[in-house]
């Protein structure tokens, strides 16, 4: 009987502390937490951070930048209220939206060359993959996965024709796996894409634009309702800061490359080359969301299709 009593006490204690913790996760109005990921497509955010473009607009603001490994982690952090604004591709956003996450797109950030790279001269099209060949990409449901599915549907007749060959690897692991020959193809983005394409014999089996058929945003920014409703000033500041950074890179690529070379620990010349590479466009316009949601809905990756763009955009 005593044990029962002890157990009840412990459980009550756990419950109360959990409730308190949950109550405390919402942070204060004067601060904003922004989550991004690694890669050149996020370059404007690095500029905004280095040049304190948000602090410039809201001087007493506390801006927290966090870098996360993938969009799933950002999504989870936003659901639990630890992140206000997150950056990533459109498909993971639609998956979250479909599952009832209260978030919308705040801004576009970049378009970027993407592609399925191979070093194998035998592989010239998607048709050439044998059952043993492995294709690496960051995760199922990612933009890389959706683009591959679109290309597979177009060229092989079925969206999931290549799914059994997919393995998930982070971009850097994917690069070393491709170079060591343990995978045959890698669907990736800059700077990894450029690194791979510089290898002798490297060629692209399908590019993002070929797969999608029209220009599309690679990275966009999403904001939670909590942030949009109760931190209007900071929310606006973030969007304006992104816009300013995007303009800065487009107008002063050399200066931007100098700033970024510290962040990415890469040679300044190389960064400049990558920043100005064909297809690398920093732009707050959001492109391609209709096509993504139609495709994902028709292939069952999302259950509901957005009826209007208002459901997906804050402004």
């Amino acid at each position, binding site marked *: 009987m005593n044990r029962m009593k002890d157990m009840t006490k412990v459980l009550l204690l756990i419950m109360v502390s959990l409730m308190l913790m949950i109550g405390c996760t919402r942070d204060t109005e004067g601060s904003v937490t922004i989550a991004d990921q690694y890669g050149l497509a996020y370059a404007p955010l690095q500029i905004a951070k280095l040049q304190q473009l948000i602090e410039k607009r809201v001087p007493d603001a506390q801006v927290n930048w966090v870098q996360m490994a*993938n969009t799933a982690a950002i999504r989870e952090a936003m659901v639990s209220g630890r992140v206000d604004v997150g950056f990533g591709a459109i498909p993971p956003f639609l998956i979250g939206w479909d599952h009832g996450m209260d978030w919308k797109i705040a801004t576009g950030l970049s378009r970027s060359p993407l592609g399925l790279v191979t070093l194998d001269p035998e592989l010239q099209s998607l048709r050439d993959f044998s059952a043993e060949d492995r294709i690496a990409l960051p995760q199922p449901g990612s933009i890389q996965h959706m683009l591959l599915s679109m290309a597979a549907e177009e060229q092989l007749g079925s969206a999931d024709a290549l799914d059994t060959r997919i393995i998930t690897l982070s971009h850097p*692991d994917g690069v070393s796996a491709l170079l060591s020959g*343990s995978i045959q193809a890698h669907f990736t983005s800059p700077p990894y894409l450029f690194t791979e394409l510089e290898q002798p014999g490297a060629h692209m089996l399908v590019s993002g634009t070929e797969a999608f058929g029209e220009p599309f945003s690679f990275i966009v920014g999403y904001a939670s309702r909590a942030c949009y409703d109760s931190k209007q000033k900071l929310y606006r500041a973030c969007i304006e800061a992104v816009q300013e950074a995007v303009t800065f890179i487009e107008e002063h690529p050399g200066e931007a490359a100098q700033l970024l070379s510290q962040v990415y620990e890469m040679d300044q010349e190389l960064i400049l080359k990558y920043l100005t590479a064909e297809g690398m466009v920093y732009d707050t316009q959001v492109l391609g969301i209709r096509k993504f949601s139609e495709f994902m809905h028709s292939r069952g990756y999302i259950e509901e299709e957005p009826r209007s763009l208002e459901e997906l955009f804050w402004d």
Partner: protein
Amino acid sequence: MGLDRRRRMSIIITRAGWILSTLLVWQLIVSTRRVSPLILPSLQAIGSSFWSSLITGDLVRYAGVSISLVLAGGLIGTLLAAVLAVAAYQSKFLAGGIDTLTAVAHPLPGIALLPLVILWSGTGITSVLVIIVHSVIWPMTINLRSGFSSVHQRYIDVGRNYGFSRLGIMLHIMIPASWSYMLAGLRIAWARSWRAVISAEMIFGVMGASGGLGWYIFQRRVFMDTAGMYAGIAVLIMIGLVIEDHLFRLLEHKTISRWGGRQ
């Protein structure tokens, strides 16, 4: 026998008590509606996700893949560990090398080796096996070696008296006599390799037929099926409990408790 059954019943009751109470607290928190179901889905949602994956056979298949990987890797790792331990026992010179190797490799988490493993053995089953073998071989080597050194000279003399060769003494005397150490090693090896296989599957899962439980959970996660994710984790926990509370205890009951404490 009766005592042991009673002890096992009491373990089951204690476990069930705590688990049920935790579920109760869970459901209470869910019912306050202060937490998004994307963080804490209701038990009904988890239950129905669990049930639907169970009847389609998905969960069993995924769990089966992980378990068979651990079994295969565990077997290979144990055999290799036996080879190392025997070699170290037979030769002082080799013992030095094996000592050093163990000291270097044992503290390395399998996941830390992942980038290297990808380079050497690719991203298939082999790599997962390499990581499991790594998590099994070192604790097993360490335990086997302490087991061997704990075997009393008298048992070895008995074996020699019956005309057994060095190998025969190994098989018929040393290994059974150090069984309690082996069992302890197996417990550690199981815990480490189960963790390793789940994490490895999450880091380089394979779509399609050959994914394991880690992959199942990861897949639910990237598609934001939180209830499915918890269902996968629940299976993970159940397997852990069954193996630790029942399989290992049963093994211990059938062997060490029957033979009596230290040999």
